[in-house]
């Protein structure tokens, strides 16, 4: 396994250790489904409950990183910095009205080493990036849409 794959496995182990249910979303979810893109962090989607907030504190410790901190004053998202790579945490929904429960119902299970990741589908990643509309999201859309077309053609 590469250092990147090993980091993901360690993150999944840390999630298991603290008992936190999280979906991998964003570009890392796309990579896990074969898209040829790169990213600077891992995006997790979790439910927003007091217990989950407590578990996020423990996740920071498990990753030997800093406590989760707000990304900005304009966002409810948190970021866990100081570990091997940044881990961003989003709550309840992604842009485009994609709620945790619906994303989870469609999510795919992907083995990473000895662990298994629960990953938002590539179609949901595309929908969320299109709705987010940030330049860095829009820039990835053509290659992600082509990847989905190719996967769909291979499945026929």
């Amino acid at each position, binding site marked *: *396994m590469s250092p990147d794959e090993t980091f993901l496995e360690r993150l999944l182990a840390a999630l298991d250790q603290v008992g936190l249910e999280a979906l991998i979303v964003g570009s890392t979810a796309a990579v896990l489904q074969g898209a*040829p893109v790169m990213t*600077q962090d891992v995006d997790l989607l979790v439910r927003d409950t007091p217990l989950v907030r407590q578990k996020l504190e423990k996740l920071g410790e498990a990753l030997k990183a800093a406590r989760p901190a707000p990304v900005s004053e304009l966002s409810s998202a948190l970021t866990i910095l100081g570990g091997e790579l940044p881990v961003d945490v989003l709550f309840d929904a992604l842009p485009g009205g994609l709620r945790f429960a619906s994303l989870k119902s469609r999510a795919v299970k992907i083995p990473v080493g000895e662990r298994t990741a629960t990953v938002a589908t590539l179609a949901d990643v595309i929908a969320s990036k299109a709705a987010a509309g940030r330049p860095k999201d829009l820039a990835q859309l053509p290659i992600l849409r082509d990847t989905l077309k190719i996967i769909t053609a291979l499945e026929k």
Partner: protein
Amino acid sequence: MDALSPDELLRKTMALRDQLAPQLPDIDPGDLVLILQSLLRPIGTGRRFFLRKLPSGVHVP
């Protein structure tokens, strides 16, 4: 998961390209090969996909 040898990766990529290119004429041929190679190198085969920021500010795999 074992990675394909370079020769096997090339052979499978080109076979799938020949199969899919007529069905997907709107996809750039170069992108088709790039995506197929990526799909044939799933997680666990030594993929690199994180960019790490160096102290200089440059991002590298």
